């Protein structure tokens, strides 16, 4: 248990809006079906075969599904897969047209051994940007020490524990309170790195990605990425529009000032008011201490133009130009932020990132709280770093936005009846004035209450007032409903809140296929808002990817059940997948069904899934366009983009669509099932060479197991299969017969195009027809169920968990 987490678990549970209220009548598909869906969600690949499914299902049965997840998080594919996903989330430009060849090294070629992951996360969390990374410094904030042990250690001289001139300064804080109990102690530590350049270790974003996933600190990733964004701005400054500004708004805030005049956390307006007044709605973040809702946009942006949109009469087109030059910097010294490698923050000419700032205009001066023209990316980075650091010492204020429940008992401890009468669970679409007024500053209050934001009317009735009268109305509202609470001094926490919601939303979307917000960054309905805020609370506890994945994968929202139980209403799910179903065309549409949860897997999951099933190399997600001579498509950035990967702001990818063009791209990539690179025999070769020889039918079953985790050949499938193979299923595979290999590869290509492979959210495998003790054909690694049990048993032993799944 880390020092940070141990502090949080002692906190009183504050009121929360987020009962994880998934339908209790959602049928559970059973452990095997859950494993078949959870493994791709965590690792980006299918289970290797039915034996791995059975082994993990047994562990789930004996020790719970959480135990399975803990084992999966220890697999090497976990960091590899989520690195690729996070690179998309960060909107890393993969377009070679933008001269970003050197960037590939930054994001794919690590410099630091993974043993230092915890130290790297600690460095990024705690060190200033003008320090370097000394991997010999103990990652003291990420040790396995509990609070008491850490406190004892701090009685010793810090220099005796830290090396190479670095030291840790610790102080005891009494900040945490257990429910009804006495204050507990916690520790604030500041790492003061050494100044000896010999100990500086350059690192790249590839290291940060891996470390943030393995050492479980996504906050470190987002701190490190800020100066990288700044470098992008410098290198692409010929670009007419500020890409870095747009990327920052998208990746850190999920807010577009073009949208915020009509859609903010406190206020959201549609243009259908006359016809459908109920469609004007919002589900803002709630201040858990005061019970008031919080205007996050207002707290984050000190500029009204940015906070409340640029398309009103005053704003004009200013937003576009206010983001130009965002995160710019000037050369002038040899400063490399956080000691990062020059491949990430410089291509060779990069020299400095001055603090005295002559950088970009409104956007980040607003963020950094500095006067116009006097803030730089360094200020923004410091803003984030300070805000993140503050979470370790300002738990109660942190809880103003998020109410971290106790680990492992999240769902049980959340009582929906305690609170949220007007915020999350209100059926009224426009919040009550007594709730809204104290959350707004005067200017925003005037805009919303009196004038009406943007061009879409006034939410609290139509008032025609003179300018003097408007001010008077504001004063009256203030008198009646109270002074401003919470803004703008809560900017740090608003920044973190928006970041947490962005990250949590991305994780949900990767797993569940559907976003929790619309393009303006706001949830579409109350259920989406509830899920988003709940996951954000989970995330901000320790910025743990695993905690959020646990919450999703163990919930009833992740039950890929095929509808075999006719007694269950098919539309029994909350409308988080298809959010528009709260505008029912038919009565049954008010909620979602499993059909709404069906989605195309992400491009990264598909590519990794195909590669690992067939023992092909996993394509580098930032590979150049050329690829290899044998299969240029496999590593082409353009192919990846055509299949959905982010390439650039102008080519963001096709999302999760599966139109004809997408299917043709996928077919071109996989239908021949030809090994993409010449790396030796693949799994089809293994089947061809199996001893004793397999029949074509047996080989087909092995392929299907590898690719779909299904060892059955249904009767209706057999005629088509036999036609494709061009021979009886009983024909023995002859390694000397090219037609046999062609036939098996054609079947392999077919399986890669099936909805069972491409789509997630619904598992249609009938476990009753699966063999109890499959004996798959393998060449390397664990193969049968016993071998997988041993494999995972060893992993459990490393985690010091007494888990087992085999007979022994």
């Amino acid at each position, binding site marked *: 248990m880390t020092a940070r987490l141990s502090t949080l678990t002692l906190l009183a549970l504050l009121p929360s809006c987020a009962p994880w209220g998934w339908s209790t009548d959602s049928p559970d598909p059973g452990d095997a079906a859950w494993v078949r869906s959870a493994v791709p969600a965590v690792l980006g690949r299918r289970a290797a075969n039915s034996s791995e499914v059975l082994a993990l299902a047994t562990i789930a049965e004996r020790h719970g599904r959480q135990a399975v997840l803990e084992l999966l998080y220890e697999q090497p594919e976990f960091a590899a897969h989520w690195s690729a996903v996070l690179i998309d989330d960060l909107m890393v430009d993969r377009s070679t047209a933008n001269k970003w060849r050197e960037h590939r090294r930054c994001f794919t070629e690590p410099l630091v051994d993974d043993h230092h992951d915890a130290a790297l996360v600690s460095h990024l969390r705690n060190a200033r940007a003008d320090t370097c990374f000394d991997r010999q410094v103990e990652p003291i904030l990420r040790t396995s020490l509990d609070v008491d042990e850490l406190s004892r250690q701090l009685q010793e001289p810090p220099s005796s524990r830290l090396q190479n001139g670095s030291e840790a300064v610790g102080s005891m804080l009494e900040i945490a309170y257990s429910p009804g109990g006495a204050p507990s102690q916690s520790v604030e530590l500041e790492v003061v790195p050494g100044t000896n350049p010999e100990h500086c270790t350059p690192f790249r974003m590839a290291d940060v990605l891996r470390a943030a996933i393995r050492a479980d600190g996504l906050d470190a990733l987002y701190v490190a990425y800020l100066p990288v964004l700044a470098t992008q701005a410098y290198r692409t400054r010929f670009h007419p529009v500020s890409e870095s500004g747009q990327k920052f708004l998208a990746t850190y805030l999920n807010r577009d000032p073009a949208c915020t005049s009509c859609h903010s956390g406190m206020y959201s307006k549609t243009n259908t008011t006359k016809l459908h007044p109920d469609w004007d709605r919002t589900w803002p973040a709630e201040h858990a201490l005061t019970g008031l809702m919080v205007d996050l946009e207002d707290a984050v942006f000190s500029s009204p133009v940015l906070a409340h949109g640029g398309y009103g009469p005053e704003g*004009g087109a200013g937003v576009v130009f206010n983001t130009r030059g965002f995160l710019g910097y000037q050369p002038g010294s040899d400063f490399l932020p956080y000691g990062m490698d020059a491949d990430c923050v410089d291509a060779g000419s990069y020299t400095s990132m001055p603090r005295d700032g002559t950088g970009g205009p409104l956007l980040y001066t607003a963020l950094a709280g500095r006067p116009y023209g006097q803030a730089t990316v360094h200020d923004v980075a410091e803003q984030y770093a300070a805000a993140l650091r503050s979470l370790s010492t300002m738990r109660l204020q942190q809880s103003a936005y998020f109410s971290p429940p106790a680990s492992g008992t999240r769902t049980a401890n959340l009582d929906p009846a305690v609170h949220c009468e007007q915020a999350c669970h209100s059926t009224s679409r426009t919040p009550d004035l007594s709730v809204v007024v104290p959350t707004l500053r005067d200017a925003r209050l005037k805009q919303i209450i009196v004038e009406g934001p943007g061009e879409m009317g006034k939410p609290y009735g139509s008032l025609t007032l003179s300018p003097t009268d408007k001010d008077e109305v504001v004063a009256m509202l203030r008198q009646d409903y109270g002074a401003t609470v919470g803004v703008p001094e809560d900017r740090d926490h608003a920044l973190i809140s928006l970041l947490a919601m962005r990250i949590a939303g991305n994780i949900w979307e990767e797993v569940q296929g559907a976003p929790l917000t619309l393009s303006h960054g706001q949830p579409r309905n109350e259920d989406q808002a509830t899920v988003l805020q709940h996951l954000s609370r989970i995330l901000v506890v320790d910025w743990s990817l695993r905690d959020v994945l646990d919450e999703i994968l163990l919930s009833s929202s992740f039950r890929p059940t095929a509808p075999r139980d006719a007694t269950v209403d098919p539309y029994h799910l909350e409308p988080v997948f298809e959010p*528009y179903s709260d505008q029912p*065309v038919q009565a049954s549409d008010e909620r979602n069904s499993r059909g709404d949860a069906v*989605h195309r897997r992400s491009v990264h999951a598909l590519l990794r899934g195909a590669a690992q099933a067939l023992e092909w190399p996993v394509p580098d997600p930032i590979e150049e366009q050329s690829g290899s001579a044998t299969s240029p498509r496999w590593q082409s950035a353009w192919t990846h983009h055509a299949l959905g990967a982010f390439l650039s702001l102008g080519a963001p990818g096709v999302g999760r669509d599966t139109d004809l*063009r997408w299917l043709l791209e996928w077919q071109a990539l996989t239908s021949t099932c030809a090994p993409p690179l010449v790396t030796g025999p693949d799994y089809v070769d293994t089947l061809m060479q199996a001893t004793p020889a397999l029949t074509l039918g047996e080989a087909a079953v092995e392929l299907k197991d590898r690719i779909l985790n299904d060892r059955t050949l249904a009767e209706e*499938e057999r005629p088509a299969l036999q036609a494709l193979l061009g021979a009886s299923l009983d024909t023995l595979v002859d390694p000397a017969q090219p037609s046999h290999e062609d036939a098996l590869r054609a079947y392999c290509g077919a399986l890669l*195009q099936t909805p*069972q492979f491409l789509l997630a959210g619904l598992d*249609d495998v009938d476990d009753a027809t699966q063999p109890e003790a499959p004996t798959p054909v393998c060449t390397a690694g664990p193969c049968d169920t016993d071998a997988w049990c041993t494999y995972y048993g060893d992993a459990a032993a490393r985690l010091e968990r007494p888990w087992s799944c085999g007979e022994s």
Partner: protein
Amino acid sequence: MSDTSSPSTSLSRRRMLGLLAGSAAALSLSRAALADPPPPPQVLEIFLAGGLSHRETLWVYKETPDDQVFPHLGTTSTALPAFFQAGSSPGVDGGGTQVYLGPGARVIAGATAGTALHRARLVLTGHDLAPHGPASGLMVCGLPDGRDRQASLAAAVNANAGGHASIVLMGDRTSVQGQVFTRTGRYGAKYRPLVVSMASLRAKTLLTSSATSPRAQLDVVHAHADRFERALTWSGTRVRSHAADAYKASLADAREGRAAVSTLLGGVSTGQGANLTQDAILSAATLLKAGKVRHAAVVDGGSLSAGYDAHNDSADQSGAASAHATTANLHLDNVLQAVHASKVLDEGVLVLVYSEFGRWRPPGYGLSGSGHWPYSFPVLLLGADVTRGVTGSLDRTREPAGTPSGHVSPAGIRAVLAHYLGLGAPDPTTFGIWPDEAHPNSTFASLQTAVLGSPS
């Protein structure tokens, strides 16, 4: 509303055939032409993504009646007097102001343009969505984002005609805007049109590639897809699933509709025009004239320089010269030259040219140039049964607040075009385009007149 059309020159070929049918004159026409029913109506819509500065291109007027030139058109103004004297006006607006098509429409309105101007109509429309994304969704689909029945005309044609009766061709720099055409409401994933990027004819290449799946392989895939479909069926009812619908439709295209799609893509090629947008328009014309599609859409982002999304250089209210006028008119000229060269207007195809909004500088606008102006801007209709004229009056200030007079909503324009194409009544469980909200008190006949003009 004004109508200055000349009946003798404003008839489309199809319409003339219809009028002559049964008369003696008709007997002199091709027997085959008269024996066959008239070809179904066709529409080519051209979406100028980015927000066309209409005051410099499609809606030019004099600040005062005595003005001899149009100073805000800037460098293009030197050649303007002769152009405007030649008669580049479709008419006067509802407020009595003579409106001219700008020099970018010279191929339509110039002295040598033939009769195209007699079948040109400007229809003022408006909405209140200023950001590009939502405005594009509204203008392309007629309904705002998120509505159950929101769908592009392309998708509606597919839903009505089955298969691929429509195609969307993207010129350069418009990949995001092109996605708007694939919107098909909550139930219409199977109706999505084929969207082809002219900059990358990957779909065409892929369809003819030996790497794509042979029929026998797709049969195996289909067997698995059938099983998946059964898993989506609860108590005999197949539940809603956009993702499964989209997959199923694509698989059907790849399996059964391969020839049709291949034929469609066969009509798309580059190198015909001076740039990708012209290629897209000429390809669309090829498909329309060959009867391969009922509807085609071309998305143009302004293929020649900075595109339509210009702020600082576009005309402001002071009448100062606009550097953007030159490039905006070049963009428009590029588009209309291709329309003219394609001869679709001679073939009775109705052409719609529009943008997601116009540009204007309202009082109090804090920056130079002009900004997005969704409240009042024109769309241009050409050819077919369109009669020359102007619908609506331009609201120059939007004060006092209110709907500018005589405008037709985006939904209304879509409804008329849907009716023109012969699309059936909308199915409430799928999607449709109908003026159920935009013009609740208008008769459909009056809406048709507003959009297409009075029939002669």
